[in-house]
């Protein structure tokens, strides 16, 4: 009998399995030199372990859909000509030299000349030159490559190599985001990657990994699918004394709560985004901190304008008035991590008109507007009807996004107060995308991001109904004109009055009901210094990060 009562594993073995020190976890290499921890002097060496719920798809970002984690890696391994700064709260974003040390415009503002740094080399020692810049543009616009941002290059006629350090971008017209468009896309290694014809790129994702090079501060040392990617210092990086870190490990953990647990345990040093609930747990730990910043995402209820129910701007305004957005935001984004949305020009952006106030929660006014439009409860069932038809519709949101699903239920209850029946329906993300694109929906809670070009055409211009993100089919010739005019300004700062007009029209028309803007909450161990995750990038200036030795 004794034999049968024994534990499956001998107790000693079990204890040994549970002893963390024996297995080497936490045995990371630490900085070897520099001053003592906490004196503020950056120290060279060490590893930072970061956690991500998704994984990059590949290392050539021209042939893979853009993902957040993918961009974080690509932007550390490759670089742009100039670097856009996250300083757009008070004025248009400024640019700092990256691969190009300077740039200048022709008098007619149609030719942009970049002067590259002289000490640029790829990680294999081959110089990085203007030829790489021209060839990268050729790859970006090649039909077989089908880069998802190729539309940004549509006004660039040619990229001319003047000499190895000088390259000229020729534009077909003058407009506000010329520099952004020229700078979009990373500079790729012509000498290594031109060996594979563009026509073959889409079938050979792994080829680029096998032939990987770097010009940025880090290079990819290894990548184990579904596990981790290891970035190591690129010794040939142009910026002297950078990066400080030896290694940055990206661990892929699909479950967000598991990721937070690992941060709390010290297995992971950095997470780019934690939920407000998890942020509370993180803040309770003295060794951890939360870094909040406003995201570039606005979440809204998109009303399908091709449905008669939502074709009238006054009815849409009534819907906005009937939704208590403040209580939704306070419930879903506690502690000031969210605010009521007003406009697609987010409140954290310089061009937003700060005099514009969100529509209040005013169900009485909503009822009045709807009654004036003929919507009354004729049969006494508590629901508004007109011409025998009830004010009833389906409100879509996507599975896996708890905040939006919760918001849908709150909106259902609030609209019921004014006699409108909204039935929430949760769809798998791709199904939601397919249904909204094809116009088979009434209303949907969706999110959209804006970039620093502040060009809202992609979402609100009538031409974007066919080719773009205006899936809710909003069409206003007046707004189209304003959008075109704003985008056509030579200097984006000059577009401010036009952008204010656009905001005011969208405020009146309510093509969508803006629900909220929210903060992104990055979480980091205090042993990591000089990390400045921001809207541009979680790994912004990763080359400046450094770690103090573990106590």
């Amino acid at each position, binding site marked *: *009998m004794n034999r*049968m*009562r*024994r534990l*499956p594993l001998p107790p000693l073995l079990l204890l040994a*399995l*549970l002893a*963390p020190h024996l*297995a*080497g*976890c*936490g*045995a*990371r*290499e630490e900085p070897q030199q520099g001053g003592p921890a906490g004196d503020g002097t950056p120290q060279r060496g060490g*590893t930072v*372990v970061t956690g991500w719920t998704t994984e990059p*798809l*590949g290392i050539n970002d021209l042939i*893979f*859909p853009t993902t957040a984690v993918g961009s974080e890696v690509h932007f550390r391994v490759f670089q742009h000509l100039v670097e856009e700064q996250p300083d757009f709260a008070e004025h248009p974003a400024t640019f700092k030299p990256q691969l190009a040390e300077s740039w200048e415009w022709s008098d007619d503002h149609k030719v942009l000349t970049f002067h590259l740094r002289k000490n640029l080399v790829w990680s294999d020692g081959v110089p990085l030159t203007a030829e790489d810049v021209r060839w990268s543009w050729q790859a970006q616009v090649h*039909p*077989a490559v*089908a880069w*998802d*941002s*190729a*539309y940004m290059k549509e006004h660039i006629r040619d990229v001319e190599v003047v000499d190895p350090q000088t390259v000229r971008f020729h534009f077909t017209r003058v407009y506000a985001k010329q520099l952004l468009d020229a700078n979009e896309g990373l500079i790729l290694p012509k000498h290594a990657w031109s060996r594979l014809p563009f026509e073959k790129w*889409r*079938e*050979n*994702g*792994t080829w680029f990994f096998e032939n990987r090079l770097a010009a940025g501060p880090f290079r990819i040392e290894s990548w184990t*699918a*579904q*596990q*981790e990617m290891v970035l190591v210092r690129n010794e040939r990086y142009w910026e002297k004394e950078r990066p400080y870190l030896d290694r940055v*490990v990206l*661990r*892929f*953990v*699909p*479950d967000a*709560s*598991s990721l937070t*647990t*690992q941060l*709390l*345990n010290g*297995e992971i040093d950095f997470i780019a985004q934690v939920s407000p609930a998890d942020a509370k747990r993180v803040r309770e730990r003295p060794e951890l901190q939360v870094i909040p910043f406003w995201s570039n995402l606005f979440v809204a209820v998109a009303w399908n304008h091709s449905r008669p129910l939502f074709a009238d701007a006054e009815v849409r305004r009534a819907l906005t008035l009937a939704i208590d957005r403040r209580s939704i935001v306070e419930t879903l984004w506690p502690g000031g991590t969210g605010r009521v949305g007003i406009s697609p020009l987010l409140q954290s952006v310089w061009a937003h008109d700060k005099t514009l106030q969100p529509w209040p929660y005013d169900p009485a006014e909503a009822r009045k507007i709807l009654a004036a439009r003929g919507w009354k409860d004729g049969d006494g069932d508590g629901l508004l009807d007109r011409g025998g038809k009830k004010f009833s519709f389906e409100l879509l949101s996507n599975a896996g996004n708890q905040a939006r699903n919760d918001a849908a239920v709150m909106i259902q209850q609030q609209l019921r107060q004014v006699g409108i029946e909204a039935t929430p329906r949760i769809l798998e*993300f*791709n*199904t939601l*995308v*397919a*249904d909204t*694109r094809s116009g088979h929906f009434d209303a949907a809670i969706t999110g959209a991001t804006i970039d620093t070009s502040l060009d809202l055409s*992609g979402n609100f211009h009538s031409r974007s109904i066919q*080719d773009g*993100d205006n899936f809710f089919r909003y069409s206003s010739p007046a707004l189209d004109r304003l959008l075109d005019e704003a985008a056509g300004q030579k200097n984006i700062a000059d577009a401010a009055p036009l952008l204010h007009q656009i905001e005011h029209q969208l405020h009146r028309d309510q093509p969508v009901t803006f629900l909220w803007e929210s903060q992104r909450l990055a979480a980091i161990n205090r042993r990591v210094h000089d990390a400045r995750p921001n809207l541009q990038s979680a790994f912004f200036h990763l080359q400046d990060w450094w770690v103090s030795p573990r106590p």
Partner: protein
Amino acid sequence: MGLPPALTGGPRGDPSVAGFLLRRLTASFLLLFAVATGVFFLVHAAPGDPTDVFEGQRINREQRETLRHLYGLDRPLGEQYLRWLAALAQGELGLSLAQQRPVATILAEAFPATLLLATGAIAVEFGIALLLGIAAARRPGGYADQTIRLGSLVFVSQPPFWIALMLVLLFAHLWPVLPASHMRSVDADLLSPAGRAWDLLRHLLLPSLALGLYNAGSTLRFVRGSVIEVMGTDYIRAARARGLSERRVLWVHGLRNALTPLIQLFALSFPQLLNGALLTEIIFAWPGLGRATFAAVLSRDYPLILGLTLFSAFVVILGNLLADLLQAAADPRVRRHA
């Protein structure tokens, strides 16, 4: 799962093992073909196609058509199906659209991890089931039996993902002694080969427990019932009457008969674990087939979804076949009839 007539000696059963094998293989092949066909058309019927994953990035119609043409998505569905079958017949599973690398490579990368996890889970399941099941069966209705049965009920009634979350809470958070995810530590490369194996074992423990504990409850009850049944049969009474020790009666005469059905259970558990570890793999960031399938479905990666599903079906069918063969090999009565 009942035994086929051929093995149990049914009235019309083919007496030859070869005949039985041939029929089972043919049926397995047809089943596999049916699964492949069903999955192909179901996957294509789901809303959205792989180019939808690019939608948010504002690719234009022209680019989308380029991609659809490149991936063959612009051809009639019937033609796509025939092309896929033709490639399959040549052993080609195609290229993952999202990752742009061969489906076979992704399968080959993910399968060992899932196999390892399934092995760990089986070890937990059958280790616990045998030890406690036999212990409970020694004195049915006794204190130990009641305690073990109650304990097994606790685990049977909780889904594996819940057990997984509780294990993480206990052993990776409140008492952080085991890693909560992955197959290896960040610096596992710096360890000796023995250290790396040790590291792997530590990482394997929690996910194996999560999967294994859930199944252990029901397997334990199966073992207990089987042992109690066998220990009450005439030949056991005869063995006791011959004066054999109780230990010998149990271990030599009792268990051999009681545990034969367990072999089939074992062979059936394995493919079930290979396919059913999706949530456990996600919670523990285990780089196996479950996670790969999850990602493939979300990105509408048709070739990868098809490859993974076909592989899963293959493993289940193979498991069933092996279960029958193992049963035949282990049970003399079955061998005699075959």
